[in-house]
């Protein structure tokens, strides 16, 4: 009973750390995907005179990835039905040039404003529309999600680390005498820590398997049936097999550090 309790006392904080890390990776992917969607959906509209070229606009800022001229003919066609062709040609000639500018990543409001100012300074640019209010709201939401995630995961990992430290104290009390006896009888550090390593590795394996199992279930079983478009289309955001390496590495590092600290603290100090 005591042994089961001790296992649970170590498995739970490990589980919390692993869930925190996996959640961090999942939310990281989700926010990155959200950011990418926002980026793809975001454009700056520039109105220029006839002489401005797409290349000139593109050279204004390194974050501008693509400049697409809007076909004036299509616009005029839709608004000037029934008007004679000669008149339509005159309208087209009289209209300024419209461009949509795409960015290579999702920028904050200040950076957008910088681009806007630079564009406005170009000769021939009549108007720049950055859709600032909508962009600002989206960007703030994006930032809020990211910051909340950092705080949540940070708190979770910190709390769990304290629980791991508590468990290390329990181990010290439980194993100190055994390790000291073994040391006096000539056992190497490896042999003295063997029992503890076995216990810790079993707990680590259980915690890692539960975490992997949970997120694999979410990806392969729950997400496809969830009806949430984002998750149905992008279920792989919830779990990737590369995550196993990150989780395994983390849990192994925690186990190694914990056991080494306990073994070293229980080690004999030769007096004299």
């Amino acid at each position, binding site marked *: 009973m005591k042994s089961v309790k001790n296992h649970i006392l170590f498995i739970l904080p490990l589980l919390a750390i692993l869930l925190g890390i996996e959640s961090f990776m999942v939310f990281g992917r989700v926010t990155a995907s959200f950011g990418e969607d926002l980026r793809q959906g975001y454009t700056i509209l520039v109105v220029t005179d006839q002489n401005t070229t797409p290349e000139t606009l593109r050279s204004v800022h390194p974050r501008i990835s693509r400049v697409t001229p809007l076909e004036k003919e299509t616009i005029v066609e839709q608004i000037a039905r029934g008007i004679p062709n000669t008149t339509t040609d005159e309208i087209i000639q009289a209209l300024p040039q419209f461009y949509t500018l795409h960015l290579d990543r999702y920028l904050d409001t200040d950076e957008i404003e910088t681009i806007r100012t630079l564009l406005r300074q170009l000769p021939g640019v009549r108007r720049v529309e950055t859709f600032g209010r909508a962009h600002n709201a989206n960007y703030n939401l994006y930032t809020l999600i990211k910051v909340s995630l950092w705080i949540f995961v940070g708190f979770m990992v910190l709390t769990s680390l304290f629980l791991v430290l508590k468990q290390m104290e329990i181990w010290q009390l439980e194993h100190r*005498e*055994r390790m000291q*006896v*073994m*040391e*006096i*009888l*000539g*056992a*190497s550090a490896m*042999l003295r820590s063997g029992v503890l390593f076995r216990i810790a590795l079993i707990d680590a394996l259980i915690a890692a398997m539960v975490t992997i199992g949970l997120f694999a279930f979410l990806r392969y079983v729950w997400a496809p049936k969830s009806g949430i478009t984002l998750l149905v289309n992008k279920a792989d955001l919830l779990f990737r097999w590369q995550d196993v390496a990150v989780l395994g590495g983390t849990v192994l590092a925690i186990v190694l550090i914990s056991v080494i600290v306990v073994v070293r603290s229980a080690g*004999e100090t*030769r*007096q*004299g």
Partner: protein
Amino acid sequence: MPNVITANRLTLAYDNGEKEIIRNASFKIKKGDFVFITGPSGSGKSTLLKSFYGQLVPKSGDLMVGGLDMSTISYKKLQKLRTHLGIIFQDYKLINEWTVAKNVILPLIIAGYNLDMQQTQAQRLLKHVKLEDKADMYPRQLSGGEQQRVGVARALSKTPFLILADEPTGNLDEYSSNVIWDLMENAREQLDATVVVVTHRIPTIFNTPYRHLILENGGLHEVR
């Protein structure tokens, strides 16, 4: 006979060398000797024994155990030396979570003996100390005398060249004490080992020829 332990002007101290407990002691213990070290409480008997298994480093002077200089010995060599010693403690120092049999074969586990050898030795040793029917029990289920017999069996399990016993009968009644003394006499004879026992009182009935050193006022004197 070669010397197993040699001390030359040996000084032992505690508290970072500030509290000297043994001063300038010189003595030799030969192979096959059975040595009792007695002295009043606090005279440094256990301290001296600790220096033999390397838990205390000499403050000054020379101390050689099994040909190794205990002042300069590396940790790795010390651990190797310890696997050839049989150490018996007053408080037994058994591992309570392990069975009696596993406690007995701890030195064999440390030495990396295979499982068959460990089991055979466990049976032989437990029979030797008359505890063969208690192999699967845990130390706390045994009496003090029985626990010390397990301690003796553990000390003998790897045929040590030197047996160090710190008050082995200190917590035992007369009957149990006599059993332990018998076992130690047999061990010296059968294993041809050197035995050093720190004790308050030398047993009244003791058949093996022995040496008696008294530790008093920081000095070690041979009285027999």
